[in-house]
Each structure stands twice: as C-alpha cells, then as structure tokens.
C-alpha cells in the first residue's frame, strides 16, 4: 500500500499525461469507494445516494470559484456542507433498517438531482463552467493522490479504533449493540458525516479537474451506483477491498469500455458483477483471496 502511494506521488517525474490521468481517476475511485465503505462496509448501512455529497462538493467549489475564491480553499467548506447535509438526512433515515434505509437514500439522491436540475443557481440542465484560469493539473493530481492516501489511512484507523468496533457491532446486530450501550444513531451519523465530507472534497477536485459540471454529471444515479459497486466487488468492510474494487472498476471503465464495441455494455458488466458477487461471494475479491489462502494453508 505504501509502495503504491509512493509510486503515485513520484509518477509525474517519469510518466506521461495520459497515464497520470488514469492514476488520477484511480485515486478518485479509491476515495469514493473507501469513504463509502466507512458507512456501507463497516456499519453495514448501504446507501445509494452518495452522488448527492459529490454534487454538493462540486457545486460548492464551482459556485465560490466563480466569486473569485481560490478553488482549493473552497474544499473544506464543501466538506462541511456535505457533512451537515448527511446529518440532516441521517437523523431521520437512520431510524430505518437494512433495505428500507437503502430505498430512502435512493429517494433522497433522486430528489436532490431533480431539484438541482430545476433550480437556477446550478445552471439548470446546461450546467456551470469553472473560471478558465483555475486549472492546474499537477496541483490537482497531488491533491487527489494525497486525499486518497488520507482516506485509506482514515479507514485503517477507524477500523482499529473503538469507533470502528462500535460500527462493526452495529453491523452484526444492531439490537445487541444498543443493549451493550452503543448509541447506534450517533455512530452511524459520525460515519456518514465523515464519508460524506471525504466524498465532497473529491467532488470539489473533480470539478476543478473537469472544469465543467452539471446536475446530470455530478448528481447522476450511475455515480451513486459505481460508488457502491467498487467496495462490493472488492470486499465490504475491509481496507483492501475498496482499493481492489476501485482498481477493477476504473480499469474496466478506462480500458475495456473505451473499446467502441464494448462501450455500451457497462451496465451488463456492472449488473453482472453485482449479481455474481452477491450470489456467490458476498465478501468480494477479498473473500475469494481468503478462500484461496485457506486452500493453500490446508495443503
């Protein structure tokens, strides 16, 4: 993991722009997957509404940059707004359990998207453009890689801390967790806010890099979908799982789906992976790895 981070940080010295772009995409995917995993994997609360947080981060950055604020200074504010929104949504929504929570988050995500494409300040369906002079690929690259490292570090820390143990207890049996004195709502809210903030910062960086956003791009349901898919394919609730998942999904997107004949089949790939993983190995690739490890051990 450390080697991967070191490689990514020194890559601008010897890699060309195209490869760096791929690494940028990978880092973006790692952030989304690992951050989502804090709530979805550690605490078992599967949310399909994360595009809302990405969109909040992206719009905060664009709207403030248009008022001549330095784009990078807008990132913490986007994170704060997303965290507040996550609490506002989470307070009522965390009364729901399992699939009901998931359905509610689809509702929230879609309501936000529809609302954002009708109001004026988001640029409506035509979207908004960043101020032209705000684009610096290198700064953005290092920020994204750095954020990916920080996100994975936070996930690793959470998993070991008392906070992470409480989340795990909630995932295994919420009633039992409550019975031993864990305030489940407070812990879920904490994990939700933390992951929302991280996703929002990534959203801000996304806006700076692509220079143009619209409700259809940053509040897209497919975005929420791929955010969920990565940790599931990789392995829910683990540290390495979301990274694997991000690697697989972003490679699929960049390499496989760039082939014209396969461009229209990404839903087949996503849906098929989801079905296969959920039916045969709910632990994802990490689970497959563990099985192989056990096999090797037996011999």
């Amino acid at each position, binding site marked *: 993991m450390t080697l991967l981070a070191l490689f990514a940080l020194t890559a601008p010295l010897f890699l060309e722009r195209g490869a760096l772009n791929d690494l940028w995409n990978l880092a973006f995917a790692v952030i989304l997957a690992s951050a989502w995993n804090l709530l979805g994997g550690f605490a*078992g609360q*599967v949310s399909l509404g994360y595009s809302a947080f990405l969109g909040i981060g992206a719009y905060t950055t664009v709207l403030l940059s248009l008022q001549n604020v330095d784009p990078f200074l807008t990132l913490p504010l986007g994170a704060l707004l997303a965290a507040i929104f996550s609490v506002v949504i989470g307070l*009522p*929504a965390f*009364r*729901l*359990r*399992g*699939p*009901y929570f*998931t*359905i*509610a988050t*689809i*509702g*929230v995500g*879609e*309501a936000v998207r*529809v*609302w954002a*494409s*009708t109001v004026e300040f988001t640029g409506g369906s035509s979207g908004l453009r960043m101020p032209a002079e705000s684009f610096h690929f290198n700064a953005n690259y290092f920020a994204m890689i750095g954020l990916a490292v920080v996100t994975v570090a936070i996930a690793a820390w959470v998993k070991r801390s008392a906070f992470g143990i409480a989340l795990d207890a909630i995932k295994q049996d919420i009633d039992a967790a409550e019975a031993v004195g864990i305030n489940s709502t407070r812990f879920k809210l904490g994990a939700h806010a933390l992951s929302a903030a991280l996703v929002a910062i990534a959203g801000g960086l996304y806006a700076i890099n692509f220079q143009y956003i619209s409700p259809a791009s940053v509040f897209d*349901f497919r975005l929420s*979908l791929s955010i969920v898919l990565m940790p*599931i394919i990789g392995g829910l609730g683990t540290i390495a799982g979301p990274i694997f998942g991000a690697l697989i999904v972003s490679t699929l997107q960049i390499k496989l789906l760039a082939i014209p004949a396969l461009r*229209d*089949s*990404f*839903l*087949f790939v*996503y*849906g*098929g*992976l*989801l*079905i296969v993983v*959920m*039916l045969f190995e*709910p632990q994802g690739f990490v689970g497959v790895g563990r099985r192989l490890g056990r096999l090797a051990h037996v011999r």
Partner: protein
Amino acid sequence: MLTSVILNTLLAAGLYAAMAYGLAIIYGVMRIINLAHAGLMMLGAYVAFALFSRFALDPFVGLVVVAPLFFLIGVVLYVAIGKRIAGVGSTPSIESLLVLFGVWLVMQNLAYVIWTGDTQSILTGYTMKSIEVFGVRLGIPSVLVFAASALSLVVLNVILKRTYLGKAIRAVTQNRDAALLSGVNADRISAIAFGLGSAFAGIAGAMLATLMAFTPDFGRSFLLKAFCIIVLGGMESVTGVAVGALVLAALENGLAAYTSVSTSLQDAVSFALLFIALVAFPQGLPGLFARFERRTAAR
C-alpha cells in the same frame, strides 16, 4: 377545476395501483424488495412498442400477450435468482436488494442493445384524442389505461379472495411457516407470486408507454413512486395499495393544479414523500389510523 383534479387523480391512481401491486405481492410473499421491477416495467414498454411497430398490434390488445409473457419471465427470474435470495424472517436482506438491482442493470443494457438509447413512443390513432366527462377533457389513452388497470386489479382481487391459489398466497404473506405447516407449497406459491408481480410490472410498463415517451432508462422514477405507494399502503394489502395510489395521485394532481410547483419538480415531491412516509409512518397509513384509534380508545 375541482372535478378535473378529482378525475385526473382517479385516472392516475388506477395506473399507480397496478404499477405498485406487483411490487407489493412479491414483497408480501417473499420479503424481497424487487428493484428489477423498474427493469420489468421498462421491458414491458418496449415489448408493447415492438408488438405495435412490428405487428401493428394495439398496445391495449397487446396486454394479452404482455401479461403471460411477463408472468413467464417472472417465474424464470424466480427459479434462476429469486429462490436463492428469499428473505429470512420478517426483514428483507440487503443482498437480495443488490442482486435484483444487478438484474435491473442487465435488463437496461439489454434494452440499449436491442432498441438503442433513442427515445421511443407509441403513437396510435387515438393518442391525441380526448373525450369530455363532466365538462373535463380527458385523454383517451389515460381513460383506457384506467379501465385496463381497474380490470386487472379486479381480476387479481377475485383470484386472491376466491381461489385456493389466492388463499395460499395470502397465507404465505401472513405467515410463511404456518402456511408450510398446513401443507401449502410455499416454493410454488413464491414462483407464482413472482410471476404475478412481474406480469403487473409488464402491464404497467406497456400502459405507461401509451402515455409517454420512453428510453431504457425509463422506470426509475416510477419504481420510486411504486415504493412510495406501498410504503403508504402498509406494504402488503390490496386496499393499502389502492389508498397509497390515491394519496400519491391526489398530491401530484393537487400540486399541479393549485400551486406553482413546476411539473419537472413533481417527481422530487413524490421522492420526498417516499422518504417522509418511510421515516414517519413505517407501518403505512393503516398503521397510522390504528395508532389514532388506539389513542382515542384510550381516552
């Protein structure tokens, strides 16, 4: 004004009830939240379109083909996937939700491959015609849709109330173990319920296709509306579904007629209602009434 709102509410409620019932019956019998419902609705629309454009079959006559076809698709889905993911106990599992989500994505991609992503619509001789009822002009397609929905719901109700099969379905819905003990083949009933639910999804999709244009992406907002209805209706009763459909339709038509909420924002309203319904009265409106009755009885 008021007559027009009432009539339009009734017409919409008929369609909504047919759309939501498929979801409710599968939930009732198997404790599965069938996200593939959206995909089935979308395929229903395309099958009606194919029958209309290839064989010049009127979409309403086409329902005779669509209903058995989707019943079969549902049974196949059950055997291939549904069987493995049936919920245990009273709460549906998150795995089943995600697997069916995968099925929905695969269906979407199938539609993209077969019919491309172009917007399609079914234009019959009467699509633009309307009739006058109580001084209100109503589109002929919406009247026909209402009639077909009402007819299919009546047929379903007769099946549920009068036949052995219907009794068995209701028995499994109320208590699966008790039904098993009294000799009901719950596996076969589940297969039939999945078939019935899918048939209703197909019918609803085919009817929606006569009212509006559609793409392979079509179905998501109607899925959320269907959820909203069954949550309002308390998840499993026929009457509950009807009440939920009426409430949602009345809210939408009322908002459109008496407020300046733009039509594009209407969807956001029903998604928000879904969220509120899930959180505020998880037992649905029947549960809410029961609570009020208890409160007044206590005095």
